[in-house]
């Protein structure tokens, strides 16, 4: 309902006590290299209980990715460095848990109901003198 008013940016924060979180983050970044980040992201999210290398390769195949290229990206240092940079950003911002959101720089922690986001988004639209789209929750 906010349509083109909103951009959602993914920042990696694989928590150290989630052993599959880093490899899964790498799989998504490897897919991103071939323009299929959100497709991989959705598959990883839908199958959180079945994370593992075989699964990542299967998803890559299902998404018709270039498999040798995907595997190189998965095993290379490039995206690991990017994920670690994201994690360092989270640390310097003080984000310790997932998910953590910044709406135009304003922090919202945890899995909040949509209304909590709408409230911050509406306040930002108001501040920017932009109309609040019809159908958006009041707040």
């Amino acid at each position: 309902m906010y349509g083109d008013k909103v951009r959602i940016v993914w920042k990696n924060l694989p928590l150290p006590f989630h052993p599959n979180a880093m490899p899964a983050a790498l799989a998504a970044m490897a897919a991103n290299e071939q323009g299929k980040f959100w497709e991989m992201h959705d598959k990883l999210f839908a199958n959180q209980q079945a994370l593992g290398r075989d699964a990542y390769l299967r998803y890559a195949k299902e998404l018709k990715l270039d498999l040798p290229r995907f595997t190189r990206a998965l095993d290379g240092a490039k995206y690991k460095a990017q994920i670690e940079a994201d994690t360092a950003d989270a640390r310097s911002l003080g984000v310790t848990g997932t998910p953590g959101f910044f709406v135009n720089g304003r922090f919202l922690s945890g899995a909040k109901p949509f209304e909590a986001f709408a409230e911050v988004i509406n306040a930002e639209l108001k501040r920017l003198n932009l109309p609040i789209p019809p159908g958006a929750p009041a707040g």
Partner: protein
Amino acid sequence: MSKKNREKRASEVESPAGAGGGGMAWLPTVLALGALGLAFVAWTDAKRTRDELTKRIVSIDQRLIQTQTQVASARPKPPQQQGPDPSKVYTVRLDGSPYRGNPTAPIVIAEFSDYQ
């Protein structure tokens, strides 16, 4: 010895017994006073013990409250209160990160997350 004298003697002889009877009359009073005294001592003793116990209970209560306060303050705060200050505006580095939606949208949501 005249009869009168004998009577007097008799009364004199009797009198110690009489005095003895009259003398023994203080005994119940003394016993009662003694009992009262003992009761008073027992009562003050009980009162002192009770007061001491009350004092100790109050001090235990106070220490319990202190301990509870210490435990509550030592307990880690709920995650909601950790992390960035919700009233501040932060700058999040976004270059090179995957995104969806309008690249020039006025609202940018940065999501820090993982898949597990």
